[in-house]
């Protein structure tokens, strides 16, 4: 009897300890970044461009990486969103139960399991193709090489869109399936066509889920490093026409390379070339704050949906 009690108690202890470790890891990581990074985060750090140097002074700030994260996220979401909504609409409103639909579902499942690094090298294979050179730039000055450079914000955004597509499809599909059938029937009974029913009734009713899908996709894009590393490159500055933030240079900025917060962290960590951990910590802190805000926004939208239902 005592043996059984000891066994049960030790099992419970194990479960509690693992839960507490999870909790501690989460807060530990955030606290660690806060302690190590808060000193370097100043307004100047946020608003100056980085400067490749070996000294910690004069290394500049993270304006270009933050702008890079913003550009990549925006291009990724803008490409992925219509794609995801269309696929989700097709799957939930039009698809019949046949082989093609089964294949489509399987393809999305397999795509969601493909590691980001594989999507990244797929991008390398695809976008170094000279016919797609307009997305980045052509390699010039090397004899006998007819290849595109294959690294730019546009290319990176497309890679990101492929990466988040399956997740966004799944979230959108759930949202569309959750719209009550009565809505569709009422619209169709009023004489609206199927297209009007979907665009004017079903999708607006599913908007909360679609916004959640956007936030989810943004979170994944912001946190990804592998795709940025291979499709945007390892330079921390913008390489387009300077000044990069000038509106007339927008195309040149998009067609050239730069960095995001994640590659900035990687390059400044002891694993990268910069080796300025204090800057890496500061940038990590900024990144985590963005992620926490996104998480909170997703939570808030879910909470508001629940309140409205009740």
């Amino acid at each position: 009897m005592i043996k059984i009690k000891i066994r049960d108690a030790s099992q419970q202890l194990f479960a509690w300890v693992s839960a507490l470790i999870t909790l501690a890891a989460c807060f530990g990581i955030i606290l660690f970044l806060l302690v190590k990074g808060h000193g370097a985060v100043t307004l100047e750090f946020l608003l100056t461009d980085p400067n490749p140097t070996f000294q910690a002074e004069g290394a500049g700030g993270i304006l270009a990486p933050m702008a890079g994260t913003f550009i990549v996220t925006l291009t990724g979401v803008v490409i992925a969103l219509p794609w995801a909504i269309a696929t989700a609409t097709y799957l939930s409103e039009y698809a019949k139960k046949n082989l093609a639909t089964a294949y489509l579902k399987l393809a999305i499942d397999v795509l969601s399991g493909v590691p980001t690094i594989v999507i990244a090298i797929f991008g390398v294979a695809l976008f170094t193709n000279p016919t797609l050179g307009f997305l980045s730039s052509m390699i010039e000055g090397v004899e006998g090489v007819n290849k595109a450079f294959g690294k730019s914000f546009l290319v990176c955004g497309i890679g990101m869109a492929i990466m988040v597509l399956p997740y966004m499809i799944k979230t959108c599909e759930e949202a569309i399936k959750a719209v009550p059938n009565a809505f569709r029937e009422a619209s169709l009974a009023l004489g609206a066509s199927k297209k009007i029913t979907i665009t004017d009734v079903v999708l607006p009713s599913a908007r909360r889920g679609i916004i959640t899908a956007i936030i989810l996709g943004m979170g994944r894009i912001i946190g990804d490093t592998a795709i940025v590393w291979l499709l945007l490159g390892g330079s921390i500055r913008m390489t387009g026409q300077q000044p990069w933030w000038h509106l007339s240079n927008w195309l040149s900025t998009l067609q050239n390379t730069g960095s995001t917060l994640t590659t900035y962290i990687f390059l400044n960590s002891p694993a990268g070339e910069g080796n300025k951990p204090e800057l890496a910590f500061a940038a990590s802190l900024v990144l985590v704050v963005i992620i926490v805000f996104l998480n909170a926004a997703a939570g808030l939208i879910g909470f508001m949906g629940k309140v409205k239902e009740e």
Partner: protein
Amino acid sequence: MAKIFFEDVVKPTVFSKTKISFNLSALYDKLWEYAIFSLAATGAIIIVLIFVFIFMKAWPVFQASGLKVITTSNFEEQIRHAYFAPLDEQLWEFGLLSLIVGSLTTALGALFIAVPAGVGTAVIICEMSSGLLKRFLEAATRLLAAIPSVIYGLVGLMVVIPLISDRLLNVELQIKYLEYFQLNGYSMLAGIIVLSFMIVPLVIALSVDAINAVPRKYREASLALGITKWRTIIKVVIPAAKSGILAGVILAAGRGIGEAIALSMVSGASANMPSLRHGFVFFLTPVLPLASAIINKSQAISVPSIEAALFSCGVILLVICAFLSISTRIVESAVRRRQGLD
């Protein structure tokens, strides 16, 4: 797939038998359906393109080395030779066994820690806690899942590596193994620890779903028989949820094998073959998993043979991960079928 029928678009009206009115709105509807279908089809084609492109790029390596790709291991030296080989005498032979072993050992090691801990945490979240603590745990899990891998890598680099090199290493040990590899804290063990924190939220999230899906009546029946709450959880709830948990474990395995950045930062970045003969040092071997190899050697990707070698790493990753996704799907459909029968 929908078809446009002539009658859908061009309909004779009731009023005149000779005049045919053009039903624009129906045409518009059909075009819209086509547009949606073609977008959906693009997504399905992308995965085929991924397979085709990566296989095509990796083909020269498979052609030159045959089965040696997965049975021999001399990656570092082969890369070095390939890098300095003249452009018209490229070396295409590569052996990736040590990378495959590196991937499998780190992923399995991380699963070995993360699965019990994740299921334990899920039990606490679903059955043993309520109110503020429960919400806290849920929020922490979500946040852990959302923290980017590069931050895990950075924290691992600054916390786990010094811990390992201070506690587990000494000069004697380092000298003893100098003929095999350099022991400096960057190791499989560091990779396992960092990776287990990365995949634990996945295991927790899917286990929570699986445990919540267990019908209430199971618990009530067990409790009514006089079995304690904890024994009910261990003997009734977890066995009923085990297929769902298994799906989570497979998903976590895929994530672990595909993880590139964090592992390339902590696991040592040199393709050594961990050997069980070294005893405990097995875990301290610096390894290079497949995904990290692509990141680590990407600087040399302009050499065609190295590019092909990295793409063959991609092929192996792709095959493993596709296999894992399909098995998740099979497990999930089995779960759904059983729940339908219940």
